[in-house]
């Protein structure tokens, strides 16, 4: 039926449905979002308000700080665990790796519930501290809970990236350093960590962008946590302030996209996919 069709027109035909779907359900809606963001009482100034309005700016700074703290803590934790797991073979190692990567597919809402079970009003940590110091520690419904939640979903992703990067390290460099008299700490500082830099940048950027935009965890823990996705949610559903919600969404999308683009220009093509 397509016997006479040239390769050129066949390739165009292959691309057409994809191009139509992406235009209809992504590009046009995004253009609409940007337009609606400038359609409020203040017009295009709504975008400037993200930085100029004290409340929005405070929330933005909060969100960036939380995402940065999550990224830093995750990188440290995942590097220690990832280096260890990739460098040692011991019974039960495969099970341990499987356990560490098991939460990879948990949606944010489930992660929020995990944090409630761990540090909520009837949580494990509260039970333990009640017995130890006679006081119930409850962290779940605040920014600390959100930090724990973001750690929970970024650790598995980052560990996988770091383990893959450690596997590709050239062992002869470390042997050379050791032969020259470098101790284990010096080898770690001067050989291993610098070689892992692209993996740090790639997985760190993904962790940062994901933490900036994550909504489900905050939604489960509490609606009054002061981060950007929750602000968008309250502006849209509770205040019916559609223009502001749209402007904030565009701002949030730009920040997340810029972080990933920046990391990719520094670390190469390994950076993608904030799940």
């Amino acid at each position, binding site marked *: 039926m*397509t016997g006479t*069709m040239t390769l050129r027109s*066949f*390739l165009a035909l*292959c*691309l057409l*449905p*994809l*191009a139509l*779907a*992406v235009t209809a*359900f992504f*590009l*046009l*809606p*995004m253009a*609409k979002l940007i337009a609606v963001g400038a359609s409020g009482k203040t017009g295009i100034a709504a975008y400037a308000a993200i930085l100029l309005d004290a409340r929005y700016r405070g929330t933005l700074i909060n969100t960036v700080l939380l995402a940065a703290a999550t990224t830093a803590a995750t990188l440290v934790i995942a590097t*220690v*665990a990832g280096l*260890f*797991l990739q460098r*040692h073979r011991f019974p039960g190692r495969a099970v*341990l790796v499987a*356990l*560490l990567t*098991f939460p*990879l*597919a948990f*949606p*944010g*809402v*489930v992660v*929020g*519930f*995990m*944090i409630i*079970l*761990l540090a909520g009003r*009837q949580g*494990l940590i509260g039970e333990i501290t009640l017995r130890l110091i006679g006081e119930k520690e409850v962290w779940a419904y605040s920014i600390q809970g959100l930090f724990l939640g973001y*750690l929970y979903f970024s*650790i*598995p992703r980052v560990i996988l990236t770091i383990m893959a990067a450690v596997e590709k390290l050239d062992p002869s460099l470390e042997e050379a350093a050791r032969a020259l008299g470098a101790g284990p700490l010096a080898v770690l500082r001067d050989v291993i960590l610098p070689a892992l830099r692209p993996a740090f940048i790639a997985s760190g950027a993904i962790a940062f*962008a994901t933490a900036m*935009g*994550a*909504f*489900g965890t905050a939604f*489960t823990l509490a609606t009054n946590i002061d981060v950007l*996705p929750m602000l*968008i*949610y309250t502006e*849209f559903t509770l205040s019916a302030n559609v223009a502001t919600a*749209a402007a904030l*969404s565009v701002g*949030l*999308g730009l920040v*997340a996209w810029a972080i990933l683009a920046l990391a990719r220009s520094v670390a190469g093509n390994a950076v*993608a*996919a904030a799940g």
Partner: protein
Amino acid sequence: MSPMRDRLIFIAQLAFTLLVAAFLIVPAALSITAGVTVNYFRGVQSGLTLEWVVQVWELYADTILRSFAIALSTLGATLALGVPGAYSLYVRGGRLARTIEEIITLPLAIPGLAIALALLLAYGGFSDFRRSWLFILAGHVIFTLPFMVRSVIAVFAAIDVKTLDEGAASLGASPWRRFRDVIVPNARPGILAGSLMVVTLSLGEFNVTWMLSTPLTKTLPVGLADSYASMRLEVASAYTLVFFVMIIPLLVAMQVFAGWGATARPAR
């Protein structure tokens, strides 16, 4: 170097890694236990029961079935759009193809909430569409397409599909027959890896779905958020347990599959 010190470093690292694993696994274990315990606050000694799971089925069966339907439809759509699209983008190459690939991948970098709000602002006025599950499907397809396209392109790059294609062309096969008989069979590892990703992501998707769903088109994760806010802990846990049971086989399949060969790994 003293073996004694090596031993201590090993034990310290092992303890740390076990602690991290406990942080991730203990809450999941608590949740699974709570879902089959008569009374969580009195502990397992209050007895085990499937009562909560049955209650979840009575309350939320529609969300579970809808999530499966949406995940499978999303898979169908990403296969139909993504596999020919990836082929076209890879064989054409050049700057235009790279730009198009960038645009397709953008939804990975943009928070789900923003994508959902954009869809709502653009199509919220078409009330039949907005009220149906197809509205959620549109969001899921946009969100998961990049995984399918990248996964398939990664395999094309690994197996040198251009040479295969030219070989088949020199034998006189038409573009369509080459696509059906040579390209698709050779792209199977990428298609499989991409499919597993798409189904897993769609089943667990919340950030996009939440704003697109209505009380009549709730998916499983939206129902979960609902139960966390309003149901007793045992019911919420039993519901989470149902989600685990659905998602674990997919995760295992992905791990097994990733072990088959580096070329088959999803490009993430």
